[in-house]
């Protein structure tokens, strides 16, 4: 089945220790997204790629970076995690850009990040 895969499902890191979260997709979608979701809150978009074109949300902290080496993979790097960065990180994909037809987003299962 075509899907969005995230690894690891659970990640524990120490305060200030860099961490990388991984996302891969078999849907062959052009657009990939990273969201942060804290408990009982709506998902918050951090950034998205249309192909290799990177789009950063204005309020995404510089501590968060992303890489998309090819169509299938996208990485979220947190350079110096703080306690406030503990959250569920969701990867999503869509066939087309936001606001266009066929732009439904399909989400992976998420990575739960704990910062000690």
């Amino acid at each position, binding site marked *: 089945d075509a899907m*969005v895969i995230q690894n690891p499902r659970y990640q524990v890191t120490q305060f200030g220790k860099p961490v990388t979260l991984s996302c891969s997709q078999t849907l062959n979608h052009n657009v990939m997204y990273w969201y942060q979701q804290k408990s009982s809150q*709506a998902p918050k978009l951090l950034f998205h790629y249309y192909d290799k074109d990177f789009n950063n949300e204005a309020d995404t902290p510089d501590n968060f970076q992303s890489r998309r080496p090819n169509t299938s993979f996208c990485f979220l790097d947190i350079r110096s995690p703080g306690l406030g960065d503990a959250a569920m990180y969701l*990867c999503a994909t869509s066939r087309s850009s*936001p606001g*266009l037809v066929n732009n439904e987003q399909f*989400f992976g*299962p998420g990575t739960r990040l704990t910062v000690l």
Partner: protein
Amino acid sequence: EDQVTQSPEALRLQEGESSSLNCSYTVSGLRGLFWYRQDPGKGPEFLFTLYSAGEEKEKERLKATLTKKESFLHITAPKPEDSATYLCAGNQAGTALIFGKGTTLSVSS
């Protein structure tokens, strides 16, 4: 400011007790209204997209409708397995999805 507001925040139903969840939006130039289901500790699962007022879509016990100001997710004769958080999101051209905070539905047998 563009917003998506969902109500109620939480809803408890008995099995078989039909009800509706509300999503009101003030998103200028709306290009799509999306409904997702999210189970605890998992990513959102896509349910429906609605593009224009008057549009309706159905899937099993769920039916989504759209007006110019709001969307409803109607749940007919719910079962315990329908318990989840239901998220609504609006989309403008060229921008990110604007999510509501969700309605957490609990269905007891």
